[in-house]
């Protein structure tokens, strides 16, 4: 059949005139919009490189051995470091893990095993809700719950507050990892006569472990960077010095528990908290220390994140063979 028109069908009549131009316009719009999305992606990533680059640049200049090993000098006097904040960060993060991981993992076991019961649904709903609560509100809550009754600020209170922020991540990741374990594993264990709890602990948990650890890492990374919940719980403490506490404790022959109690029961600083406070000071050396703290914090957060992603990829490839 050669090209040629006889009569046009109804649709062809109704089609817009100048269809060639119309199609060209449609394709032009297509090109413009698709390019636009690419440009917007680049735009959104610019701050990433800017921040990372700038923090590297300013922070590196302020880093020194003293930064890590010394306590802060009085305001306005140059020198000193943020050892108090580093130790505080460690103590608070460890406490937060202690408070968040056991209940979080256990609750995840329940939600994974009985997802359709009222309590299972409530767990998932609650963790979703909890993840949306502003961190400063959590700080207020712990202030009322712990600081007021105790009568003083403490690393303990800070640890509890941060644990509430870690909890949703831990529950969610653990639950998802548990769900990924094939049913056959669980049924095999039960068929051998193992009770529920042994199945969960000895079979399911190890199988899901690597994924769960990834969840822990991401939660820890978030915990280490939190500031707002510590504002009225741990408060900050430029004199926080574990070595000193331990030393004094040994000299006065105090028991291990007493020493531990002293470590967690006083106000403490953390890297992000000290970063913030220093940034509000008019002294340039304090601001320098903010940048250095920012560098340490950022490298820590990004490293953990990268490591967690790489770990996930590695495990995934391994499983796929």
């Amino acid at each position: 059949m050669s090209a040629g028109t006889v009569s046009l069908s109804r649709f062809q009549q109704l089609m817009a005139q100048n269809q060639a131009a119309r199609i060209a316009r449609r394709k032009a719009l297509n090109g413009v919009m698709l390019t636009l999305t690419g440009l917007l992606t680049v735009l959104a990533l610019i701050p990433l490189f800017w921040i990372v680059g700038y923090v590297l640049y300013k922070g590196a200049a302020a880093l020194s051995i003293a930064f890590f090993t010394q306590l802060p000098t009085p305001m306005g006097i140059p020198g000193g470091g943020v050892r108090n904040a580093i130790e505080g960060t460690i103590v608070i993060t460890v406490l937060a893990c202690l408070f968040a991981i056991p209940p979080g993992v256990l609750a995840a076991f329940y939600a994974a095993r009985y997802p359709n019961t009222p309590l299972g649904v409530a767990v998932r709903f609650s963790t979703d809700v909890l993840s949306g609560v502003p961190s400063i509100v959590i700080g207020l809550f712990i202030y009322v719950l712990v600081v007021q009754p105790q009568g003083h600020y403490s690393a303990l209170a800070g640890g509890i507050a941060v644990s509430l922020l870690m909890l949703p991540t831990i529950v969610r990741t653990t639950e998802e990892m548990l769900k990924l374990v094939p049913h056959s594993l669980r049924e095999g264990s039960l068929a051998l006569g193992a009770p529920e709890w042994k199945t969960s602990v000895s079979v399911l948990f190890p199988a899901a472990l690597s994924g769960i650890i990834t969840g822990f890492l991401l939660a820890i990374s978030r915990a280490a960077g939190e500031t707002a919940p510590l504002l009225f719980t741990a408060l900050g403490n430029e004199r926080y010095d574990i070595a000193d506490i331990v030393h004094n404790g040994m000299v006065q022959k105090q028991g291990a528990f007493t020493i531990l109690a002293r470590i967690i029961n006083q106000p403490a600083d953390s890297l992000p908290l000290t970063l913030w406070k220093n940034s509000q000071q008019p002294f340039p050396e304090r601001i320098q220390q903010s940048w250095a703290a920012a560098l340490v914090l950022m490298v820590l957060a990004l490293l953990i994140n990268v490591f967690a992603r790489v770990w996930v990829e590695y495990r995934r490839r391994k499983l796929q063979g």
Partner: protein
Amino acid sequence: METRLNSTPPSNWSRRLQKRIGHGDLPWQGLIVIASALVMLIILGIAAFLWRQSSGTITKFGWSFVAPTADPNWDPINDNFQAWPFIYGTILTSVAAMILAVPISLGIAVFVAELCPEWLRTPLNWLVEMLAAIPSVIYGLWGLFVFLPVVTMPVGKVLGNTLGKAPLLSQLFGGPIPESGASRLGAALILSIMVIPTISAVTRDVLLAIPSHQREAALALGATRWEMIWQVLLPYGLSGILGADLIGLGRALGETMAVTMVIGNSLDPSPSLLRPGYTMASVIANEFAEAVSKIHVQALMEVGLALFLITLALNILARLLVWSVARRTPQEVRA
């Protein structure tokens, strides 16, 4: 051995209980139930405690504490508190942040989910996640010393000279931006940078969940790629995309440190974006540690309660929307 003279058989649960105790399951079951209940209780606890703590100010000021019409007067010295300026500041900065963040996040999600080559997808996802991994206080630090002077201040000047002179918008864009750049505009801009990763990640997942036969149906009719995305995919995933936006809004509303460091923390009476201000979160962060009088503390607690309730409602709405897309996707029978 129980003697059962009546013919009622032992109830089901007592039989199960005996079985469980024997195997060590009961302690385990008990443990995980308690842990689960704990999580639920925390939410209730937050609400309850904050409510109790603000009872003083609730009884003293009632609704006028939050009403926009009451006399805006946050006066710790005379123990007279009215929180509307903070609510306004929170809403203004968050909405402004969303106006920027929603289209950009949509663009990113469309690009990553539909357009970019396969090999680029994972690196892009990583990069966007890195943005989310940077602690808020570092955003604040960079915001304060770099972003405010370099970007916010010039932009504010331009906006002030253009939109600030326009008849309707002069309220919103009037008043000179401070030399430091510390302003609600700065907070809005930083907030948008911070919520883009969250919104775009969820939106991307929503798009990826849309079954591919919808795409094919549109393309088979002769639609261009963009027409397929705009006319078929986005309407299909609309509720999920809205949910993603609301999740982002929730984050913006509650963001504390970055906002505190760039917003100027002042009770500026002007409603303009270009002037410094307060948000609910930033006033708590700024004033709580130094609040002396009991009623001041209670007022701040009430602000915290208000913030909690707003983000709670938003979060629930957002989750419902995101789930509704997953439920609408018809059951795919895997061949």
